[in-house]
């Protein structure tokens, strides 16, 4: 953002007070301290914003079409594939990539690793937004989105796995809101609220671990309802929940490596020196977490094949595809992480994180769509469904950027804390 210049040292805003001693108003903070003209100028100069506008220009009418004419108007309305991209990508893909919140919360608050502190807030925000938008994807996909609170308050089916997912995602969302609130309180200058949350932080962190273990696992367990449909290599009735949970660990960590890299290079103006200086060190630390969880994941995946006696499936076409997935999405990034850690190649680690994150989305799409109904046929999503998915994801990107631009996520607030 080149608009910030040496002539205006008070921008970007890191303090309640302007250079002349008067206070920034909330409105000025929202406009990043720029005049509306300046804000527009920087907005339209950014090619990413033009891309977003292009996506929304078609995406919003498509969303309207979905809410006026029903799901059938924008999807193939398949009864064989009741869950499409909205859930396959939006729920099953977004949620593991948002495990960063509880991972870093645990590292810093519970294990006392203060050296990871500079990235903690970004990890929490990444978690919060990932979950929030997973719910938004769900709201696009649900037949009756207005009945979202029904499983909580109206008609309860507590023996169902989805009941668990619903309750845990809802409570975990509130936990994550509470965890991100201190950044907001600093920004608006309401320190009392921050102190209240500070006292609850250990409780919130532990609640985060419990809820994450269970609902990451529960998303996997949802597929155990279809033991005769999902390809046996992608479904282990006994271990599905732990496969999903274990893979969410490196998925969340990889996502935070990606997100911090993007912020470091495209939003350097917003990062403070502590964040910039410690990022390489932190990235290597996160990579260690990734490689440990990846080797664990790889082994338990093989254990599942052995447990269910599925070796013969490996020799089929589906087996080759399975090994391709494990090879490209797990083994290769795992070695890249290891080499990167050993020789301090941070660039290699960042590339590995990208592969690992895409690999997890690939795995979830395989389980939910590609290898689901492997005995029937493969469904190619309607282009409108793809476009709406991209639209919601773009909204996620914009919200993410909007918050990181403003709140003290990757910089420390200079005013009272």
């Amino acid at each position, binding site marked *: 953002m080149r608009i910030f210049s040496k002539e205006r040292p008070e921008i970007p805003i890191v303090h309640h007070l302007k250079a002349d001693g008067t206070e920034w108003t909330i409105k000025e903070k929202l406009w990043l301290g720029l005049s509306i003209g300046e804000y527009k100028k920087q907005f339209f100069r950014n090619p990413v914003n033009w891309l977003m506008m292009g996506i929304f220009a078609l995406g919003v009418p498509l969303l309207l079409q*979905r809410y006026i004419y029903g799901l059938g108007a924008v999807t193939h309305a398949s009864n064989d594939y009741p869950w499409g991209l909205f859930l396959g990508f939006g729920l099953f893909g977004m949620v593991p990539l948002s495990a960063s919140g509880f991972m870093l919360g645990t590292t810093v608050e519970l294990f006392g690793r203060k050296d990871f502190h500079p990235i903690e807030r970004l990890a929490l925000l990444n978690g919060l937004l990932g979950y929030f938008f997973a719910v938004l994807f769900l709201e696009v996909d649900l037949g009756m989105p207005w*009945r979202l609170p029904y499983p909580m308050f109206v008609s309860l089916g*507590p023996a169902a796995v989805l009941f668990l997912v619903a*309750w845990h995602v809802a409570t975990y969302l509130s936990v994550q809101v509470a965890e991100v609130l201190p950044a907001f309180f600093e920004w608006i200058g309401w320190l009392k609220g921050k102190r209240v949350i500070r006292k609850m932080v250990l409780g919130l962190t532990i609640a985060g*671990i419990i809820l994450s273990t269970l609902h990451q696992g529960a998303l996997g367990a949802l597929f*155990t309802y279809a033991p005769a449909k999902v390809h046996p290599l992608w479904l282990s009735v006994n271990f599905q929940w732990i496969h999903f949970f274990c893979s969410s660990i490196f998925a969340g960590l990889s996502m935070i490596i990606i997100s911090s890299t993007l912020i470091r290079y495209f939003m350097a103006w917003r990062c403070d020196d502590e964040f910039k200086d410690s990022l390489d060190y932190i990235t290597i630390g996160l990579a260690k977490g990734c490689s440990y969880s990846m080797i664990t994941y790889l082994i338990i995946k093989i254990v599942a094949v052995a447990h269910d006696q599925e070796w013969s499936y490996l020799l089929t076409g589906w087996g080759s595809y399975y090994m391709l997935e494990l090879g490209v999405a797990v083994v290769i990034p795992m070695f890249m992480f290891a080499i990167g850690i050993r020789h301090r190649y941070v660039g290699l680690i960042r590339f590995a994180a990208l592969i690992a994150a895409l690999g997890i989305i690939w795995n979830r799409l395989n389980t939910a769509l590609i290898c689901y109904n492997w005995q029937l046929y493969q469904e190619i999503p309607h282009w409108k469904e793809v476009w709406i998915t991209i639209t919601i994801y773009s909204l996620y990107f914009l919200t993410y950027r909007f918050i990181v631009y403003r709140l003290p996520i990757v910089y420390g607030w200079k005013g009272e804390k």
Partner: protein
Amino acid sequence: MKKTVSRRNFLKGGLAGTAAVAVIQNKEAHAAQSFEGYPEGMGVLVDLTRCIGCRSCEAACNKEQELPEPAKPFDDYSVFDEIKHGQKRRTDETAYTVVNRYDVPNLDHPLFRKIQCNHCQEPACLTSCFVNAYTKTPEGAVIYNSKVCVGCRTCMIACPFYIPTFKYSSAFDPRIMKCVFCYDTRLKDGKPPACVEACPQEALTFGRRNDLINMGRQRIRETPGKYVEHIYGEKEVGGTAWMYISSVPFDQVGFDTHVPKEPILNSVKDFLAIVPMVLTIWPGLFVGFHLLATRKEKIKEQEKEDKEGQV
């Protein structure tokens, strides 16, 4: 909520206790046991050797359930040649039951198979529903309550027979569309469903499920060589109210012979069992980790305070 499957109630008790103590009141306590169905539950035995593919059952169902008129009339048999995605016809939001033709090798005539909800003894749709929209009635029907349904379509994922369908065409009043054994209009009063009554060949026999199993066995026994020795639905997914007997192996007439022989819920239990464990063990475990991990810091702080105290 009074009369559902007992195992469900048991799990409900276990999970409710941990996940939603405040909201759920579960007064009935049940021991964990397998549910083998209501003893007086009704069912239908379908004899594939008798079906001639006249589609009378489809027409009767359409009328009884007030479904929209199909594009092709019910006496149009070209529907048997319809193939979509390499698959024969299936149930959808306009048809709760569908008859398909199968040309079996080494057989001089085709066989026909009617599909509809099999009304499982322990239904996967019911156990996977997080708003309790499904009920297994003592009469044997698996019925659905559209008033609480959220439209998540997990029941469609869970059904091993690909039966529930979704009314995708509606934005404001969508719902699951599936055969309900004509519960409201007939079964409740002890009457057979419309399709059974319409069958001119007596291919469909309505009766108590237990009696139907005996009848099926009797037919198999009394006419040696006519039937394969299996009643599809007696054991499949823990038993279904609708059962089939056939003259050829079931996989040749479109049946999925790989469905588990136990209720679908059994494969989900591994996960359900860890839930209370995680909820109770994790807090203590991780507080312990926290105390262990931050012990050195605490000691340092203490030493610092002691020093300051001495000065």
